[in-house]
């Protein structure tokens, strides 16, 4: 097991290397550049800027230099926000997005599993129909609709929660509720459907029939014999769900005016802020790769049939 974890961990290194290399060149070769704004700059100014950012060097040299800096944990200066380094920009905004995303994921998992298990056990009863209709809404209605609807209902009409803002503001933790609900809602809905389906499948399996034929109570059958197997598909889904939540965060941050990385991400892409884009891409990828790594390990613990060779 330890060996498997180490090997799996080492395999992350080439993955990250490929991601960094590909995005470096893709971004450089995309049309436009950091200095091709609306305002046409004098030739001399551009020359100086190019020099300052080492962009007058051959591409491979720039790449090697960048790679070296990244390995030391330095993402360089931002092209657009002249006073800040990329490390500073990301360090200020990224934790906010992570908090929002984690809370949304936790909500999606807990509520999704609860509703999924409940629906499966009440299959084809009104509770099941209600929950599953709700889930269809969650999957099909986009966040930029759900967000404003929640704002309208819980903030403007009922005044229970703030319309916008973040936990650092006056409202404190209450400011987290609506954005996290909006962000987690589609994933909650999907996890509810996924866990319902997989529980129903396990309930029909031969080994559950054996468990019942042994005289075990329905409670023991569900807790000991059904849940573990039924949870596996949900565990595999955590990786993609997290990726989706992190990217979906861009929309939700706009709607709820959350000072996360979403704001500067969109701007950096439009501005061709090479170093900032690269920094964001690398941090995002690290996060997702690490998440999938964790999921694999949890999966391995849950399923004894996976051999660690």
């Amino acid at each position, binding site marked *: 097991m330890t060996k498997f974890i180490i090997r799996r961990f080492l395999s992350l290194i080439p993955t990250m290397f490929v991601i960094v290399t590909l995005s470096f060149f893709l971004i450089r070769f995309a049309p436009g550049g950091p200095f091709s704004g609306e305002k046409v700059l004098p030739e001399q100014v551009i020359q100086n800027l190019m020099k300052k950012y080492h962009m007058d060097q051959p591409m491979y040299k720039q790449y090697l230099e960048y790679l070296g800096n990244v390995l030391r944990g330095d993402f360089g200066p931002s092209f657009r926000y002249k006073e800040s380094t990329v490390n500073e920009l990301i360090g200020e905004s990224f934790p906010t997005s992570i908090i929002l995303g984690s809370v949304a994921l936790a909500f999606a998992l807990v509520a999704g599993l609860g509703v999924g298990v409940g629906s499966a056990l009440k299959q084809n009863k009104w509770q099941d129909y209600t929950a599953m209709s709700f889930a269809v809404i969650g999957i099909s209605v986009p966040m930029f609709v759900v967000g404003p609807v929640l704002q309208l209902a819980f903030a403007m009409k009922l005044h229970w929660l703030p319309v916008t803002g973040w936990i650092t503001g006056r409202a404190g933790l209450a400011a987290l509720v609506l954005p996290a609900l909006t962000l987690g809602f589609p994933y909650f809905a999907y996890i509810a459907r996924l866990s319902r389906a997989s529980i129903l499948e396990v309930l029909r399996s*031969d080994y559950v029939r054996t*468990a019942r*034929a042994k005289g075990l109570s329905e409670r023991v059958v569900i807790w000991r014999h059904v849940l573990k197997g039924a949870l596996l598909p949900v565990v595999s889904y955590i990786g993609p769900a997290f990726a989706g939540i992190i990217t979906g965060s861009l929309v939700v941050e706009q709607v709820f005016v959350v000072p996360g990385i979403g704001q500067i991400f969109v701007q950096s892409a439009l501005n061709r802020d090479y170093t900032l884009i690269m920094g964001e891409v690398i941090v995002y990828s690290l996060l997702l790769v690490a998440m999938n790594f964790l999921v694999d390990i949890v999966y391995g613990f849950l399923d004894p049939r996976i051999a660690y060779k």
Partner: protein
Amino acid sequence: MTDEVILQVKDLKTYFHVDEGIVKAVDGVTFDLHKGETLGIVGESGSGKSVTNLSVINMIPDPPGKIAGGQVLYHGKDLLTMPQAEIRKIRGNKVSMIFQDPMTSLNPFLRVSTQMVETIVLHQGLDEKTAKAKAVEMLKMAGIPAPEKRIDQYPHQFSGGMRQRVMIAMSLSCNPEILIADEPTSALDVTIQAQILDLMKDLSARLGTAVIMITHSLGVVAGMCDTLCVMYAGRIVERGPTDALFAEPKHPYTQGLIKSVPRLDQASSDRLFSIRGQPPNVIDLPDCCPFYPRCDKAMDICKRKYPGATAFGKNRTVNCWLYNSEGK
């Protein structure tokens, strides 16, 4: 085998309500099981053997299934009307089951020890340690080498035959009065089939367990069962002591089944006999003998009415118009 009847199945009817209509999977099955008896239930696949036995311990999936009538008396008490809490004390304890596919019948996520110990603790009230010792002893009896070590492994670490041994050990661990084995060897290699059957024969004799042995192959049960019930389309069409039934099969279907058992004294060039045609679809079956389209001796009346049972001595009955005076 003694004369004491421990299980009486009376006119059992189990129907499945599906979109196409009502599947009468079991339609009026009656048999007795005596203490220590080995009873074989034989019939082609789809004839209702599994449904019969799941009905006996009241485990028919509902929906779509419903037990539409009949009684299952275990020591005089009807298992079909018993509250769930009470029948659970009988399942796995007094009446236990082994299923066809040992690859899927054990929980792949739980150690063998967990799965065996939970049954013993539940029904015998032992503490976990004593229960585990008991489980090891059962595995040893079932012929599993190094059971102290193997018990902590997961099912996927056992071969198919070994898994079926685990199932047998588990099902016998509470010393049940009745063991229902639903095609316990059909999913195994031929060489292993014989070993498993021998093991079951040996253990049930040693523990005095009555066995209901379900199979689609007469050859499997011939050497093992005291009594045979031949099932066709949800009904028992012939029943009797194994010897008598083999010596003188009465129902044309039984005759066909016996003729289709491969025999050692047969020249290998002879083609193996097989009954022509297919078993009927048991959805909305009219009142007739369901075997008549495949029967060489079919008469007019066979298409109009299902025959009642004709008795031959104490333990033999057959449902066929050939032996029914009403049909003459």
